């Protein structure tokens, strides 16, 4: 299949290396009064050097718990976490502190020290690791240059915009030259435009320094924008993992499909999804991934079958480096002809999903917490 080979190609070189992060049978429970919550249930996966790996899931799925178990801010009840050959879950005290210094982390609400200037914040991890002063000064200058904040070195965090604060957070995380960067909803507090610029910065850092990034988010477009591979977690379980193009175009898990449908609702205007329909006027979401995106499949349908095809919505974007076209179409004709058109599209390798009326669908799909502007 063209899709699978292309998607795998992106990762072929990194896959040959040993994993940088290995998560094995990770389990974490929380006690809340009488109730016990299983936040993570036997989660296993690996992240390879140089990858941007995304973890997505609905609110409460266990994403934050997962990322906090990687640097042991949360101690798992069972399972093993290994980062760069070091088994984190075995470490305590001083050795854990040392190990954490090799893992950078950025946060949704930035977590900058309000009592320190921008430069002071970036210097913080170097100070606590005991770097000599001149080296600290040199590293801080370099990093502020990298994130484009050299002129704000003496400002305090309260004087910065959200996007600038996150850039400081990134500079701070990179200061001790980590082998891994963890990101817990790092763009969720930012507006769409700022989100995009922060994502571009992370992507540039990944490309230039080969830094491995593990990011969690509930925003699909963040994953779509920069991740190579993605895992979906649902109620503490890892239900799906694969290249972004594959997971996004044909999600296998219930949770993955739900997330994707929620995304679709964000992208497509509601009045389109609400159009009246019956067996001779049906609404479909079409997905063209990879090769099919370049073929005139839609034109063929109209030419060869007695149907009308009305394009209501269309977008082409990149999905983990693979072109991904999406259309919302209304196909009209005799019920038999419409059905035949659907079959034809499917045969040609197009992803076809019928769109049921929104009020039916929204009963099953929790509506997205926030409507984000499209990032494509």
């Amino acid at each position, binding site marked *: 299949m063209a899709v699978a080979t292309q998607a795998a190609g992106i990762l072929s070189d990194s896959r040959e290396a040993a994993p940088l992060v290995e998560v094995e049978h990770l389990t974490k429970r929380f006690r809340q009064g009488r109730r016990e919550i299983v936040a993570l249930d036997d989660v296993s996966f690996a992240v390879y050097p140089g990858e941007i790996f995304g973890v997505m899931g609905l609110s409460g799925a266990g994403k934050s718990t997962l990322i906090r178990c990687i640097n042991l801010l949360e101690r798992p009840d069972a399972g093993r976490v290994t980062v760069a050959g070091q088994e984190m879950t075995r470490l305590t005290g001083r050795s854990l502190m040392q190990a954490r210094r090799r893992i950078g982390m950025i946060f949704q609400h930035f*977590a900058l020290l309000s*009592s320190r200037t921008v430069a002071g914040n970036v210097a913080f991890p170097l100070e606590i690791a005991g770097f000599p002063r001149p080296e600290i000064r040199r590293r801080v200058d370099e990093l502020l240059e990298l994130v484009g904040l050299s002129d704000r070195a003496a400002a305090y965090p309260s004087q910065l915009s959200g996007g600038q604060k996150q850039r400081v957070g990134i500079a701070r995380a990179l200061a001790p030259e980590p082998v891994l960067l963890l990101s817990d909803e790092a763009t969720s507090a930012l507006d769409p435009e700022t989100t995009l610029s922060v994502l571009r910065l992370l992507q540039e850092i990944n490309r230039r320094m080969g830094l491995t990034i593990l990011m969690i988010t509930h925003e699909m477009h963040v994953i779509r924008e920069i991740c190579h591979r993605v895992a979906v977690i649902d109620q503490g379980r890892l239900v799906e993992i694969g290249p972004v193009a594959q997971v996004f175009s044909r999600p296998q898990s219930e949770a993955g499909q739900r997330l994707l449908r929620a995304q679709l609702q964000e992208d497509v205007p509601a009045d389109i999804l609400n159009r009246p329909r019956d067996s001779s006027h049906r609404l479909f979401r079409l997905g063209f991934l990879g090769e099919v995106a370049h073929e005139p499949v839609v034109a063929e349908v109209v030419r060869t079958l007695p149907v009308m095809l009305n394009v209501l919505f269309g977008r082409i974007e990149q999905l983990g480096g693979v072109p991904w076209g999406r259309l919302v179409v209304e196909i009209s004709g005799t019920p038999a002809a419409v059905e035949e058109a659907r079959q034809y599209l499917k045969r040609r390798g197009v992803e076809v999903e019928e769109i049921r009326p929104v009020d039916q669908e929204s009963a099953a799909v929790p509506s997205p917490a926030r409507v984000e502007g499209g990032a494509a």
Partner: protein
Amino acid sequence: MGWESLSALLGPLGSPFLWQQMTQALKETLLMVSLSLVLAELGGLPLGVLLVVSGPGHLRPNPVLHHVLGIVVNVGRSLPFIILMVAIIPFTRLIVGTSIGTWAAIVPLTVAAIPFVARLVETSLLEVDPGVIEAAQAMGASFSQIIGRVLLPEALPSLIAGATITAINLVGYSAMAGAIGGGGLGDLAIRYGYQRFQVGVMIVTVVILVLFVQVVQVVGDSLARRVDHR
């Protein structure tokens, strides 16, 4: 008010002896307040830090220690100052050698202020964003680095505001301590104004006390503002 009564009111204020006493009393108040403030911060700050870090979900949760400290602090805070002052006379003697005078007053003032400071410090430190503490942990900061480089600096404006409140309370307490021979402005106001019916002296002393408190507040506020970058 007749001319005679006014001159009777203001008469004693013409006496150089009285003004000398007032300067002396101001010095004593200054000494009592500043020294007991410093000592109370020295005692209350670590106590407050301990209260916070031993709390649930904090750096070193320790329910027993947290509870015991909380009770000790509450007991210390609920004792009326006069009673505390009398109750710890043996302790005061042990430390200063006497239970009378300005130096002796500093002991109960300090003892009374320590639990007060501890609670204020606790409140200030709890205001520090837990996310920032967690970020420091994620960066591999040690327990003492988190306290010294995160908790205390982040809470500094609030700690200064707390110290200001403590200083002002100490001014009030020091007036009471004056009643048992601690000296100071309060003592002067009581001896001349209350016991000898020299209302003019009392009014002037009270005015000085009010100005004193005002200065403490203004200085405290401006210090707090200067370090506040939140």
